[in-house]
């Protein structure tokens, strides 16, 4: 390929990367030097060697994050990055070329249909507001397996088409088999309809994007023909629980600094985060057909976290991948509770751990490898921190067991032990600074922009929010560390995970759920606390933040899931974000669509017990569903027998006795669908309410 790839990155790009990695390397070496000077006095014991190794890995990981944030701070402070993709003029598109067409894709899997379509409609409405919606089509790419959700999606799609007059602009399809999950879903789109479009903008089920942002993404792609992908930074919005509001605040206030910093050193070698990104379809078709990795899951089999791999393959082929850190109007929703957050981590963890193998694949660019390693480290860091803490505890204990010797050989003068308190304190302070300074810098940045400062609740509100967020993150970090350690170990022991749909809506965590999820954490916190207090009392006090997080994990998890507390914090001006204080039109549209859920289709106004039964009984729903089934060869004899068996099963035992897969099989077959429609009308069930 590479027919449209631009000239190699200017020397300045290389210098930026060299400078950045030199900073990371030097700060790691300095911190290590301090630690070595402490350990070195009487030679390195095995445990000290282990500590040094772990510290080197973990500190360099922190350094990448810290220096990215610092670079981002300076960029935002001075207001520009001249090499940002949005600042480069690029090449004006050929005026004689046909205008680009862009497909906006929303892959979904058993999601809340009402929310999905409310969000998509908000994005559509915002796009219409720009007056430039003609170049865009919308695709709902359903991999839904649940028959009730499937039918609901069809009705919601038809309702949206009617409501926005979107015939021929808003499309829907449900895949008969969800082969290769999301990757297969997108591949199916690309190979069947990709030829109609120059670009695709991939959304997640909870993504919302401003119309002007979509238009700007296309404009940037048009002006940069060597760019295959532009990722926008999605800002978390819309949740009301305390946990989510804290994360939304953190994502907003710190996120913009980190993404600016990432763009500083990644430039055209950035990464793909799976959604809220625009992709040039042709190079995606040419270079992103993902293979199955040899071997068994979790490291072999289908590539789960496809996004990083697709970005790496595009880079391998010479295309540029950018992070448009300064494009706003890109939003997503986050898990509402600590437990949901951990569940999402469980799914992501396996995909990211698979990248360990890909990082060592041949032919990839260096920065792509680094992206893979960073992905691995976002989970592997947890077991490494745990190991580091255990090793520190053991080392501290061993030190308490040593008796101090003041007189050596014939010396009559005592030899006083050397104190390394200064060095150790320095190491600790440097580490803490690297972890917490970015929070302070983010606060300083707010002072530069009065409007933004007000949007975050003013100086007092923002300062209190940062302080409380810091306390909260200190409390939850050890819990997440244990969760992630468990996930990593489970994956290493080859216990694969499924790909369950997310529970996205706000909901409270019950005591039972919290106790089940965090009982082990609490126990570990109490036992470790008692042991360290008993055997290494000096260590205990250093360890209290970790112990407090673990011991209090049940109440913290429950309280932080509270929507009431989230709302009260908002009333107090805490954890405010610009999207809360002054929501953009697209988020207002979403709220309106959810509140005034008044479908155009009368059939959607009913809330039947089961959309599956409605597809069998209601002539309109039945006909609509039938019209959306893919044209396929009639089933073979064996399949026909199976389907007839299912029909008898339904006739005799009713729908509650059937699995979702069985119900899906029935309504996926046109003949069974029509036959059951006739059967339900000729022999209505005792519960006659089933009929319209």
């Amino acid at each position, binding site marked *: 390929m590479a027919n449209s790839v631009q000239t190699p990155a200017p020397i300045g790009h290389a210098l930026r990367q060299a400078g950045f990695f030199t900073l990371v390397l030097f700060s790691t070496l300095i911190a290590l030097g301090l630690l070595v000077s402490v350990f070195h006095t009487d030679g390195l014991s095995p445990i000290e060697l282990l500590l040094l190794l772990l510290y080197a890995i973990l500190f360099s990981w922190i350094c990448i994050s810290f220096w990215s944030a610092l670079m981002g701070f300076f960029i935002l402070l001075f207001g520009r990055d001249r090499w940002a993709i949005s600042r480069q003029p690029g090449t004006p598109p050929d005026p004689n070329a046909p205008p680009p067409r862009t497909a906006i894709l929303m892959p979904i899997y058993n999601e809340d249909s009402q929310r999905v379509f409310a969000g998509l409609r908000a994005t559509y409405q915002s796009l219409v507001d720009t007056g430039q919606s003609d170049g865009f089509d919308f695709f709902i790419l359903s991999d839904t397996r649940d028959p009730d959700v499937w039918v609901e999606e069809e009705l919601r799609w038809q309702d949206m088409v009617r409501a926005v007059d979107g*015939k021929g602009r808003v499309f829907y399809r449900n895949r008969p088999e969800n082969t290769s999950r999301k990757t297969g879903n997108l591949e199916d789109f*690309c190979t069947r309809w990709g030829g109609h479009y120059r670009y695709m903008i991939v959304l997640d089920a909870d993504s919302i994007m401003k119309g002007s942002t979509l238009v700007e993404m296309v404009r940037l792609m048009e002006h940069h023909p060597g760019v295959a992908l532009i990722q926008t930074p999605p800002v978390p919005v819309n949740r009301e629980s305390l946990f989510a509001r804290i994360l939304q605040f953190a994502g907003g206030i710190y996120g913009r600094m980190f993404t600016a910093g990432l763009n500083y050193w990644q430039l055209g070698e950035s990464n793909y985060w799976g959604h809220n990104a625009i992709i040039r379809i042709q190079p995606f078709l040419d270079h992103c*057909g*993902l293979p199955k990795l040899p071997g068994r899951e979790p490291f072999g089999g289908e590539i789960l976290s496809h996004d990083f791999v697709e970005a790496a393959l595009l880079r391998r082929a010479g295309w540029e991948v950018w992070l448009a850190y300064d494009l706003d109007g890109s939003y997503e929703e986050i898990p509402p509770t600590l437990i949901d957050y951990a569940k999402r981590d469980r799914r992501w963890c396996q995909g990211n751990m698979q990248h360990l193998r890909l990082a060592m694949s*041949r032919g990839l660019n260096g920065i792509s490898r680094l992206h893979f390693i960073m992905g691995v480290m976002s989970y592997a860091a947890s077991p490494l921190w745990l190991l580091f803490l255990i090793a520190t505890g053991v080392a501290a204990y061993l030190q308490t067991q040593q008796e101090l010797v003041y007189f050596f050989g014939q010396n009559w003068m005592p030899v006083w032990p050397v104190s390394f308190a200064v060095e150790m304190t320095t190491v600790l302070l440097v580490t803490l600074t690297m972890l917490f300074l970015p929070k302070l810098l983010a606060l300083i940045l707010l002072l530069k922009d009065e409007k933004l400062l007000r949007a975050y609740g003013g100086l007092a509100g923002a300062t209190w929010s940062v302080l409380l967020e810091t306390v909260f993150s200190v409390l939850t970090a050890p819990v997440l560390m244990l969760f992630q350690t468990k996930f990593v170990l489970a994956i290493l022991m080859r216990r694969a995970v499924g790909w369950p749909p997310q529970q996205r809506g706000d909901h409270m965590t019950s005591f039972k759920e919290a106790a089940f999820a965090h009982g082990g954490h609490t126990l570990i916190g109490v036992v470790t606390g008692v042991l360290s207090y008993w055997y290494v009392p000096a260590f205990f006090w250093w360890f209290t933040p970790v112990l407090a997080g673990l011991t209090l994990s049940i109440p913290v998890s429950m309280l932080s899931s509270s929507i009431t507390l989230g709302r009260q914090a908002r009333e107090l001006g805490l954890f405010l974000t610009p999207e809360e204080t002054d929501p953009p039109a697209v988020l207002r549209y979403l709220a309106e669509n959810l509140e005034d859920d008044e479908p155009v289709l009368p059939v959607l106004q009913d809330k039947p017990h089961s959309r599956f039964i409605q597809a069998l009984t209601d002539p309109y729903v039945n006909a609509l569903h039938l*019209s959306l089934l893919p044209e396929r060869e009639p089933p073979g004899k064996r399949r026909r027998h199976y389907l007839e068996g299912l029909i008898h099963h339904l006739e005799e035992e009713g729908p509650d006795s059937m699995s979702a897969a069985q119900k899906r099989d029935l309504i996926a077959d046109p003949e069974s669908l029509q036959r059951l429609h006739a059967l339900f009308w000729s022999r209505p069930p005792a519960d006659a309410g089933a009929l319209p």
Partner: protein
Amino acid sequence: MDRSKISAGHHYLAPSVAAPSSELLFGRLGAYWQTLGVTDPAQVQALTEQVLRRAAELPDTPLLDPLARALLVCGDLLDEWLARALELPRPSRQLAAARAALLSGVAPGWPKALFAPPGEAMDGLLDTLREAIAEPTPTPVVGAMPTQRIKSFTLLGLVRVLWRKLFGG
């Protein structure tokens, strides 16, 4: 599920009637037509009679009782008219979509058109129907997405590369 709760004689759907009375046939078919949007009793009667005539000509199907067969004929009758009026292939997805459009309520006067003499203008109705027919996906443009090769790093591979660099070949 707990199968002990299901008595042998109790089924979810009502028992099938091998020889339904004309009262039952007219009653159930009439209700069906009304749900589809045919409200004029005379039209309901005429359509039901037409359906029953056709159903009687069909061969017996062991899996469907006479009433269910007649209900399927109702759909056939609609499809036949839609295919003719909209010039759609039969059977086809477009025809099913046309039936859905018809039943969606966008053209409430459609039963009148069903009884209109051949050749009578009903362009307005057909245009409304055409406009309401769902278009779930665009026409496919088949494209290829070749599977990429990702070569894993192996020690043997490294040795091979070194060998080639050092000794060529």
